């Protein structure tokens, strides 16, 4: 039987009832009321307070730990060192199994590899006692020379950071190389030699912090039946469960409540192993809440990267070759090392699919600095800054408008790029034809909305202020193809509501809401009738978690499939109850309606099925694995104002025109782009960690590490292109990450437009601008 009322996704419908409308977030009430919905808000009686003793040295061997005085303190439940926890090599990276990140981490080790590395776990009755216990532990170190400059991490004579025999999956630890990747298509050197114009440049991006408002936090306890339960602020509850079992050999239930932001920072096992170790040791509930300083200095940052680029074009503006050689700093451990680096190539290079030759490669190196990890954009913001900046320069040298140049060489609907197949995440990718790509509309309509051509006619320098206008192009992906899987279960209730159970992890993004919208659209009901339960590994079906721009696409498709199956089950049940052929029935407004105008409400159907007619519970589960990863596209325009006396840069206007397919919830989709833009402005202008000569991060709070505040953000505008991705749920693609790709290059290009200075290192600090302006004036 065919479900006649469920539209085939091959044709773009013109109208939706619930999808493509801005319904309010399903958790909006609880969040604005300040309800106790975050991990640290849960009252777990008798929970021990867990604190971590951290290394003050960047690189050292622990000779001995004397915890006797701490243990003698009243109220201290336990002090755990590397001798007390399983010696199992793992990666903190919360990725699909087997993880592409090297297994190079231990819960506690006899060696410390950065300032902040864990030395011991302390559990006590109160925070005060735990902190006093930390002070009483005596550690004897053999301090080793440290590798602090990633550009020299694999120089000869450098100390080896990972010399332990148990690790696996690292490329060449003896030279501090965590991973290495290279690829080429065509002959780059030959094409560059044949090019009329060649531009070269070296670009740097910093180790940005996620700076999510809620720090890392987890609570563990044995439930009344003795099952280990972990409540955690995590983006990857199922990976946490799997990794905890790998380390401790223990089964567990992982519950994700509301999360106070993640941005990739919570796609890792930070706190869960520490509280688990304490609960297993003591039998007591354990709570660990990271301080802001720990979150800044001992969790993850964005991978700092350097890209050396060469690009060549013919005189008529045809891009011929791209040569992109990178170096990435993964810090003390190789979390997401290979995959972020590969994404730097795979989520930028297919955009310019007309080139004759491409080469991409480089090392991801270990250093004695805070480990890098997943961070919104996942390598693409770093490489987009480099690639878009150099293409802007190339356009300038060709005498072309950068919009014309980038459009002339970029991908279009119905086209492909060999990169899709060559580069995946940690392995080969999959072939795909681009079925939705409105980059031309994004560029041309964006230029119109921004008033690009008029603005470009304006004078750039007036008195002490300079104005400039820049444009940047970006793409991203929607899920990791052939790896990412998500499940959805829908259960029908006798009051006309449905429970939607998803493993998908709403970290503030609004995924619970958009998944409810997708289910409501298929089931011809309203979002308030879809009650969502997400991310409880004992209750909800598996989902890979919230990363790789996959939730809307993968979990959305799983939800759509489950809802379609539920629609079929409802029609089938109604057909039996009403004695009407299923073909003569359709769903409308929470009811089944027959051609003869008889109707049954959902409530009536499930009530009959509960008590009086072919009794059963209607419940379905469906899964979705992505076969492709349809890229969203985006063109952004920046107007900057530079104070020529101080070097201060203000982004007066930032407009993004986005092709994310159908925005399931335009209001929430806009919020994703606006928020990513602000983080991108932070990366472009303010955010960088500064360390002292011993490798200690001194930018460890919100005073010393500046994220954009309200007054720093001027006008951000977001528009959506009319687009429909046939493989996506109701035409949707991803939207959460791409917004971080464009701000840095658009701002740097605008600065060049204003004063003719190319900034190739982020963040673009006022003092650097001040000296750049001074040199510029000198050379006039």
């Amino acid at each position: 039987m065919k479900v006649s009322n469920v539209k085939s996704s091959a044709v773009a419908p013109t109208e939706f009832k619930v999808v493509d409308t801005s319904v309010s977030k399903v958790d909006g009430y609880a969040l604005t009321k300040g309800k106790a919905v975050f991990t640290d808000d849960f009252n777990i009686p008798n929970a021990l307070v867990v604190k971590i003793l951290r290394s003050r040295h960047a690189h050292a061997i622990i000779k001995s730990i004397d915890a006797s005085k701490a243990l003698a303190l009243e109220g201290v439940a336990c002090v755990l060192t590397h001798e007390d926890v399983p010696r199992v090599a793992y990666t903190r990276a919360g990725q699909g199994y087997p993880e592409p990140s090297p297994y190079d981490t231990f819960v506690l080790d006899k060696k410390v590899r950065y300032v902040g590395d864990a030395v011991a776990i302390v559990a006590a009755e109160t925070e005060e006692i735990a902190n006093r216990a930390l002070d009483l532990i005596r550690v004897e170190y053999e301090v080793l020379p440290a590798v602090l400059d990633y550009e020299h991490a694999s120089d000869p004579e450098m100390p080896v950071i990972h010399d332990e025999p148990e690790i696996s999956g690292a490329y060449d630890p003896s030279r501090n190389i965590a991973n290495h990747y290279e690829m080429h298509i065509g002959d780059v050197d030959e094409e560059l030699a044949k090019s009329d114009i060649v531009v070269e440049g070296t670009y740097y991006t910093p180790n940005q912090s996620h700076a999510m408002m809620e720090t890392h936090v987890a609570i563990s306890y044995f439930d009344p039946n003795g099952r280990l339960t972990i409540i955690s602020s995590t983006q990857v509850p199922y990976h946490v469960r799997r990794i905890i079992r790998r380390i401790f050999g223990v089964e567990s239930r992982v519950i994700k409540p509301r999360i106070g932001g993640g941005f990739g920072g919570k796609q890792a096992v930070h706190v869960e192993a520490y509280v688990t170790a304490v609960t297993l040791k003591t039998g007591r509930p354990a709570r660990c809440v990271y301080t802001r300083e720990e979150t800044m200095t001992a969790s993850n940052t964005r991978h700092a990267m350097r890209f050396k680029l060469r690009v060549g074009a013919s005189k008529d503006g045809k891009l011929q070759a791209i040569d992109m050689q990178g170096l990435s700093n993964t810090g003390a451990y190789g979390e997401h090392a290979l995959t972020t680096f590969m994404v730097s190539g795979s989520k930028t290079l297919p955009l310019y699919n007309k080139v004759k030759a491409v080469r991409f490669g480089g090392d991801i190196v270990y250093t004695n600095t805070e480990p890098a990890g997943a961070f919104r954009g996942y390598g693409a913001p770093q490489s987009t800054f480099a690639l878009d900046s150099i293409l802007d320069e190339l356009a300038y040298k060709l005498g072309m408008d950068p919009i014309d140049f980038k459009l002339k060489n970029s991908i279009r609907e119905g086209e492909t790029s060999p990169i899709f197949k060559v580069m995946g995440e940690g392995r080969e990718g999959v072939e795909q034809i681009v079925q939705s790509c409105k980059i031309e509309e994004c560029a041309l309509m964006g230029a119109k909305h921004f008033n690009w051509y008029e603005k470009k006619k304006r004078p750039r320098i007036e008195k002490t202020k300079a104005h400039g206008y820049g444009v940047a192009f970006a793409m991203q992906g929607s899920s990791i193809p052939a790896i990412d899987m998500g499940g959805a279960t829908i259960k029908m209730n006798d009051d006309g509501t449905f429970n939607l159970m998803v493993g998908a992890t709403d970290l503030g993004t609004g995924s619970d809401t958009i998944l409810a919208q997708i289910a409501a659209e298929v089931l011809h009901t309203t979002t308030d009738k879809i009650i969502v339960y997400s991310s409880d590994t004992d209750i909800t079906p598996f989902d890979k978690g919230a990363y790789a721009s996959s939730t809307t696409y993968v979990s959305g498709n799983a939800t759509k499939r489950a809802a379609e199956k539920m629609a079929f089950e409802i029609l089938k049940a109604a057909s039996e109850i009403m004695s009407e052929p299923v073909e003569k029935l359709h769903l409308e407004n929470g009811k089944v309606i027959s051609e003869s105008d008889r109707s049954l409400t959902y409530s009536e159907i499930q009530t009959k099925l509960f008590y009086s007619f072919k009794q059963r519970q209607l419940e379905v589960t469906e899964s979705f694995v992505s076969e492709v990863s349809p890229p969203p596209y985006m063109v952004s325009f920046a107007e900057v104002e530079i104070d020529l006396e101080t070097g201060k840069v203000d982004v007066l206007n930032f407009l993004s025109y986005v092709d994310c397919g159908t925005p399931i919830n335009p209001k929430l989709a806009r919020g994703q782009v606006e928020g990513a833009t602000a983080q991108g402005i932070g990366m472009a202008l303010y955010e960088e960690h500064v360390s002292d000569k011993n490798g200690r991060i001194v930018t460890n709070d919100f005073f010393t590490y500046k994220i954009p505040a309200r007054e720093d953000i001027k006008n951000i505008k977001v528009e959506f292109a009319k687009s429909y991705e046939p493989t996506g749920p109701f035409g949707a693609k991803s939207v959460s990450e791409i917004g971080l790709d464009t701000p840095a290059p658009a701002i740097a290009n605008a600065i060049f437009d204003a004063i003719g200075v190319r900034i190739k290192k982020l963040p673009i600090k006022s003092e650097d601008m001040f000296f750049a302006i001074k040199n510029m004036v000198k050379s006039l």
Partner: protein
Amino acid sequence: MKVEFKVNDRKHSIEIKPGELLVETLRRLGYKSVKHACDTASCGACSVQLDGNPVLSCRTFTAAVDGHDVKTVEGFSKEGELSAVQKALVDEGAVQCGFCIPGLVVTAEALLKENLNPNEEEIKTYLNGNLCRCTGYVSQTHAIMKAAEIRRSSTSVPVEKRGESS
């Protein structure tokens, strides 16, 4: 030592340690809306009103509020209802993770008490200490303007309309 103070008009009498911070006391009393986020008085997530003025509870000693009135976000709307500010924040899509929202609501309410017709710049200045990492602030500013408009239209006292800033 023992202190007595009101939270959202409810009287509390509680034993505290010397040096105890208001954020700790309030969370201990069950006001979990008051958030720990920065430890350094730089993010605004722990904002509460003290005798009607916004303060950072992570830098306010509980001993200092003895005999005073504290108001948390729980005090700005009844159970089952949202205040105009809360509703506007939800309606404008200005709530993502929601961790900064209680502190933002408390501070925005203080702003609207001082100025029921704030322009964009005034909102940004007043709330500059309330960091948000999710939204990019645009929707939050719009929400507060919208809430102010709703408050103005429902208040009986006529409010002089002031010019918008450029």
